[in-house]
């Protein structure tokens, strides 16, 4: 068991013939992910890597191959449209890797998501989702992962790798790792993913990695307190970030004194999560909680 993706997942890659799309589609296939289709408008009929059929539209790709999950590498100007196309074609999971989508576009996408039950969006501006040993969808380095029972959910890509690297080094495997992305308006948030981890019998503990900006970590804290009995270790990046400056991610900004790391750390600790004192202690913090 795991959450969101597994051996059975049939993946369609939007933007499969582009630079990032082709590179990572190949990596995913090498990892063992079941990539069944690709989409690039006007390139329909081609075969990617000699075996994966390319279609002009997502609708056609889904119809022909039964793909249920889309992974999007379309550049920012067309990325929101690509998400809408995947939703309309009936994909139940849409994972958008693209960084730099205008927030106005994402506001519209969110509205469509709210009115389309049964569809989940992960990202944008995220590394993707991996269930180690079974299915890798996105851009994370597969080899640092190890199959096991810890769920990882994070707003940051490389900081997720850092946490996974620490877990694997301690011999602790992961059930599923979900990068929810660094944008201010996006798909699944911490609460959505924690809900799935709590319900997944194969996940025994969670590492949650947040950062400055917004109120998603505070909402997660409330959920952890009220609904979770699995241990949650957390880290919040940006304790030293100055106010009003965008720290790389579009969503990582302290605005009007709100969204500071201190507030988030306090909320999580009050909820019973344990916050790692440094980013080097994420796995060790969880390990200490699991032993109890």
């Amino acid at each position: 068991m795991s959450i969101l993706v597994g051996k059975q997942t049939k993946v369609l890659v939007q933007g499969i013939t582009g630079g990032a799309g082709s590179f990572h589609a190949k990596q995913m296939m090498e990892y063992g992910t079941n990539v069944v289709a690709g989409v690039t408008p006007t390139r329909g009929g081609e075969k990617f890597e000699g075996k994966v059929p390319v279609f002009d539209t997502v609708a056609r790709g889904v119809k022909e191959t039964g793909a249920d999950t889309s992974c999007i590498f379309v550049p920012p100007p067309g990325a929101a449209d690509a998400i809408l196309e995947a939703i309309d074609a009936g994909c139940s999971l849409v994972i958008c890797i693209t960084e730099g989508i205008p927030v106005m576009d994402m506001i519209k996408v969110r509205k469509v998501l709210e009115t389309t039950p049964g569809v989940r969006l992960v990202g944008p501006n995220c590394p993707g989702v991996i269930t180690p040993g079974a299915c890798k969808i996105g851009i994370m380095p597969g080899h640092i992962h190890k199959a096991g029972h810890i769920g990882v959910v994070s707003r940051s890509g490389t900081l997720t790798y850092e946490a996974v690297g620490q877990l694997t080094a301690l011999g602790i495997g992961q059930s599923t790792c979900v990068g929810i992305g660094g944008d201010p308006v996006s798909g699944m948030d911490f609460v959505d993913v924690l809900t799935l981890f709590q319900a997944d019998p194969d996940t025994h503990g969670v590492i949650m990695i947040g950062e400055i900006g917004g109120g998603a970590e505070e909402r997660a804290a409330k959920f952890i307190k009220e609904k979770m009995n699995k241990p949650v270790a957390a880290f919040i990046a940006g304790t030293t970030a100055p106010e009003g400056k965008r720290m790389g991610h579009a969503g990582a900004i302290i605005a009007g004194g709100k969204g500071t790391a201190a507030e988030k750390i306090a909320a999580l600790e009050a909820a019973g999560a344990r916050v790692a004192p440094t980013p080097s202690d994420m796995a060790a913090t969880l390990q200490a909680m699991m032993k109890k």
Partner: protein
Amino acid sequence: MKIHEYQAKQLFLKYGVPIPKGYPAFTLDEAEAAAKRLVDETKSEVVVVKAQIHAGGRGKGGGVKVAKGGVKEARELSQKILGMQLVTHQTGPEGQKVRRLYIEQGLAMERELYLGAVVDRDTRRIAFMASTEGGMEIEKVAAETPEKILTVFVDPIVGLSAYQSRQLAFGLGLEKHGKETVGKFAKLMAAFYELFVKEDCSLCEINPLVVLKNGDVVALDGKINFDDNAEFRHKEWETLRDVEEEDPIELEAKHAGLNYVSLDGNVGCLVNGAGLAMATMDIIKHFGKDRGVAPANFLDVGGGANQEQVTKAFKMILRSPKVKAIFVNIFGGIMKCDVIASGVVAAARELGLNVPLVVRLEGTNVDLGRKILSESGLKIEAATTMADGAKKVVAAVAEASR
């Protein structure tokens, strides 16, 4: 991206948000000419001279002055403000040099209100906030008297509805100024919303929004921030950008496709990924706070940087006089460790390495990366983990400053 008040007001005008008459001025003579034009056009001797910098709180800092004696006084005030180092709560203690002015007609106002629009992250919608506490910082009002802030959320498919504008208008008590004022406010709201969406704003503020004695509603101030992600569909933003308001190193980084933010500390950081870059700052501060060691910058070279970008990034760090040591922290995923290592070595060779360098490499092609570093002949201290690297760089700075 931020723009000046006068530029925001030009957009207000374009979309139909009423503004006072006014003209920008870059020199003293231009300021005088603008004042003369205003006095002629408005038949009033009252002219306002406003410093144009990107930070807020200009009035309190002495950057906004009212000339009641017409052109001569306007020129005198302009002389004082133009070129001054304006210090506000948003500029930092060093302040910001005033290079541009906005000369505006003075208006007899009845009431000052606040109107703002932001992207609300919790509801994932555009939120309009209005308050009777015009002229005050909205954060302060939100903290002290939250009940005085009225908010409406706009459905992105439906757009702003007239009833929502009425809700704000009656909430502000605008009917007291006559029923026409309610209608004028609703019209202003519609224009404001259209501007926000079409111009891809992330924040738009009118503080104060004033009601005049004749019942008109006018934007006395204007602040607009754009969503950087939408730059690809707004070529005109380049003409609105005032590079003198931006940190030159941050601007250079932006052109090189790097994310860079200047900080006050003494350890230069080169990291891949925004979250890891922030976490690297945090861990340096964690181990260094009692020894006077802190990060000098946030620098994310991104996931797909090439060797030239890494070289460029490393050079930017090396150039800063405040940097006493450098910490390179890489968890290579897409970014390969050998690419980072080659970039670092190339930059260090070209500029010479005169501060301690601690490198922590992990991930794809890590062995190759470490080999490149160790064979470079450069004095590089290798670290095994983030904590190990942070401790080593803190020790190096403490050692160097002894």
